[in-house]
């Protein structure tokens, strides 16, 4: 998730901007929408501001579709999709870059998204390449092994970041049943252990066209572009229907605590987490306002109190954890000063939350949150990439890109009482999970790998 936190705020805001812009000129933004017979959704938006295009393919597959033993495989797949298509195989990146294009991809707990940025004149080639890797994968053992090492290297970067280590333990403690309990990159033992058949089964189950949304924004003719998309994508057969993720996290019945002892010489960190509803839930807009008043910017309550006022912390951050299909977490992260008291930071966070539940936001705070959300929409709307991303997110997480306007309206109509109510309902003492990272001195013998490396 944190790999590339999909911002709920950004999604909503962009959505709003598209819708708002549309209201001024026309009943709806000029998005061309098509459903292919195999279940794939296609959205095309013309934008001729630069001679380029952005293509997003967002798949409804993330680490929530994994199970113990194969954690991290969705993210590993994100890597393999650049290496295994029947026609382009390992030449995928070479071909794309030689045509003036570039690409990236990210995996969250909920989705995997592939992004291409290219001169619009190269659309036919880019579509050939995307269709190729959708159509099937060759899993060459040597490639699998080498890419497993790359993913492990990515994982090690995380393991050297104390905040990431604590975050991983926090989610593992806050969830006991639902697959959000493991990190997107997966447990190291699982990274070492995926087998060929796991990969094949995962691809077949998840990479079916009915699980994908394709969004194209750029200097194209919408009708001609759709014809090109249809020609290449419509022939990919619909896949088997997946077993849905049925597990619901049972209600948390009391406070949970997790401690990580850290020898890296860093500072203490405290995370307070509470369970909140899925992104599409009606209580998300008031939770966004709550997030903004507590953590949004340097005039937010917690920044003012903890970083500037008491100078207990170097930084406070967090809030909603991006776009998610299932009930997720609201996390407040406090990075303390050297030698700072974690208990004091935790007490301050809990008191600030309790106060919102009692008193709600001020009029100024409510207005500031709504202004900021509006402006952040517009900021994302400045690029073809931003437009593609918001269309894809809204389509996938909110039941269709046309929901943009409704989502923005929901934000505009949040009241102070709504914010008070959601703070009291979700950010409870009973439902809190607290993670603490405590620095401690390294001792001789901690460094078990050293002897091994020395051989």
């Amino acid at each position, binding site marked *: 998730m944190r790999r590339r936190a999909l911002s709920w705020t950004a999604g909503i805001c962009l959505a709003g901007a598209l819708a708002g812009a549309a209201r001024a000129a026309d009943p709806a933004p000029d998005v061309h929408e098509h459903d292919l017979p195999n279940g794939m959704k296609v959205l095309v938006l013309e934008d001729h*501001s*630069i*001679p*380029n295009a952005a293509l997003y393919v967002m798949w409804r597959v993330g680490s929530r579709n994994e199970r113990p033993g194969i954690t991290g495989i969705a993210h590993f797949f994100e890597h393999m999709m650049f*290496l295994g298509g029947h026609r382009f195989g390992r030449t995928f*990146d*070479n071909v794309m*870059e*030689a*045509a*003036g*294009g570039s*690409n990236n991809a990210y995996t969250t707990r909920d989705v995997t998204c592939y992004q291409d*940025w*290219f*001169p619009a*004149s*190269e659309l036919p080639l880019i579509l050939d390449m995307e269709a190729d890797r959708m159509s099937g994968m060759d899993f060459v053992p040597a490639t699998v092994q*080498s890419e*497993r*090492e*790359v993913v492990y*290297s*990515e994982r*090690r*970067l995380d*393991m*050297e*970041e*104390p905040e990431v280590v604590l975050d991983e333990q926090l989610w593992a403690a806050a969830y006991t049943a639902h697959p959000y309990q493991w990190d997107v990159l997966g447990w190291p033992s699982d990274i070492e252990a995926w087998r060929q058949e796991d990969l094949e089964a995962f691809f077949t189950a998840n990479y079916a066209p009915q699980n994908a949304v394709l969004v194209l924004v750029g*200097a194209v003719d919408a009708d001609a572009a759709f014809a090109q998309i249809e020609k290449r994508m419509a022939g990919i057969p619909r896949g088997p229907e997946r077993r849905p993720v049925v597990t619901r996290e049972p209600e948390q019945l009391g406070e949970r605590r997790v401690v990580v002892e850290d020898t*890296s*010489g*860093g*500072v203490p960190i405290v995370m307070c987490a509470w369970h909140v509803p899925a992104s599409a839930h009606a209580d998300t807009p008031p939770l966004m306002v709550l997030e903004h008043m507590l953590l949004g*910017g*340097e*005039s*937010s309550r917690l920044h003012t109190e903890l*970083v*500037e006022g008491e100078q207990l912390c*170097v930084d406070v951050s967090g809030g909603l954890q991006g776009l998610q299909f299932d009930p997720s977490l609201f996390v407040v992260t406090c*990075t303390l000063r050297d030698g700072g008291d974690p208990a004091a930071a935790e007490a301050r966070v809990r008191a600030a939350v309790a106060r919102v539940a009692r008193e709600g936001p001020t009029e100024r705070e409510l*207005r*500031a949150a709504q*202004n900021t*959300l*509006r*402006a*952040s929409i*517009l*900021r994302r*709307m400045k*690029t*073809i*990439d931003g437009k593609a991303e918001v269309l894809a997110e809204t389509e996938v997480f909110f039941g269709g890109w046309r929901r943009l306007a409704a989502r923005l309206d929901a934000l505009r109509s949040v009241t102070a009482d709504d914010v008070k109510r959601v703070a009291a309902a979700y950010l409870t003492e009973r439902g809190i999970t607290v993670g603490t990272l405590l620095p401690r001195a390294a001792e001789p013998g901690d460094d078990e*790998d*050293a002897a091994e*490396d*020395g051989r």
Partner: protein
Amino acid sequence: MKRALVPGVVTAFVALASTAFAQEPAPAAGAPPAAVRLPATEELVLPCGMRVFLVPDHETPLVALRVRLPGGGNQDTPALAGRAALVADWLRRGAGERDTLAFRRAVEDAGGVFDTYATARWIGIDAEFLAEDAPLAVSLLADVLLRPRLDAAEFAKSRDLALEQINVLRTEPNAALGNYWNAWLFGAHPWGNPAGGDEASLGGDPDALRAAATEFARETTRAGNVWLAVAGDFDSVALRALLTEAFPGTGEPLPPPPVPAVPQPRKGGVLLVDEPDSLQTYFTCGGPGFDRTDPDHAARHLANTILGGRFTSRLNRALRTEAGLTYGAFSRFDDVRGGAFWMHTFTQRARTAECVGMARRIYREFVEKGMTADELASARTYVKGQFAPDELETAAQSADWVLDLAISGLSRDFIDGWFARLDAVTLDDVNRVIRERFPREPLAWAFIGPAAVVRPIAEGLGEVTQIELSAPGFGPR
């Protein structure tokens, strides 16, 4: 993520983007983009001596203010490292009628952003507001530049936070390495300063530091040293009137402060920063290069694209895609620091020797044999294809280029002629540049990793200087 080639390091090194463009009218379908130009800009000097550039773009109802105050970290001696960054933070801690909190609320209540920061070349202010709030944006900017409070208690907070952030940086070796590398390469020159300062420069006599910061803040905000670009949705006539009223007085534009005599970077030598617990070994190596004002700039850019400037570069393909040694490997020329060349990667501790050996082999083969015609064609298409979205899609991006070119004394042709210069590079040109102008071994090296593993490898690369990651400062200056 599939790539994101180590963002921490990129940030730490503050690599200057070396290309840019604004596009022609949309090309006919099927044709690649033909050329790119900076958008039309209006330029004026206010009576007070402040330079102003206007880049109108009415697509989105936002207005961006970009300010550059030339000087920046290049004016800091090693004993004052981090002063420019402190001043950048201090400037927005209360201005005019508003104290720190009131100023932040004025920005954030309107949904605006108002960031200040320092680079080696300047202190920057990047602000953006809804178009309807342009008067508010201008008045806040005038407060910061003309009426900063420069309050002593706020300075103490700023300094304390900066010291704390150094502690945090020491837990992130991949980000910290940039500081060690610059110090190792440039020693006591300001280019060797850690941007955020170090324990010694920030931790000494607070009154002396504050006095030096005050002097610098006054100096750098003089109207003649202010370069402002306004980009986005505004009415030029109204905006000119607003600016003239907000920035009164008379004065002359000043030339950018000179950079202390440019040093030759270190040639050879190994800095080993010991972190016994590190799971990985992080390293950077490189040497003298040449900057973007050189006639060989386009060839340099194409050459580096093939060596380490994109995902399928030779370094990343070999070390990541083929050997699985790392999450990313790349190379750059640092145009903020005279075009010094460096390449960077990391690997698990047990594979350090293999990774170092492979990076050296690839580099040696590259500088000895150069690239192929196919590689040149691919690099040229790639650089042109990525140019518009990377550099000139938004008015604010264009404004950044307008300011950079003006302050650097470069003409618009740097952008407008970029595609033509790329097209003019022949295979012979690019291979001459690779053979003759990329640094040859011995390269300078900087490692962060477990000395028990790295030391024997480092000794094979040159004379080793070893320090602890936990030791104050970022290496011998």
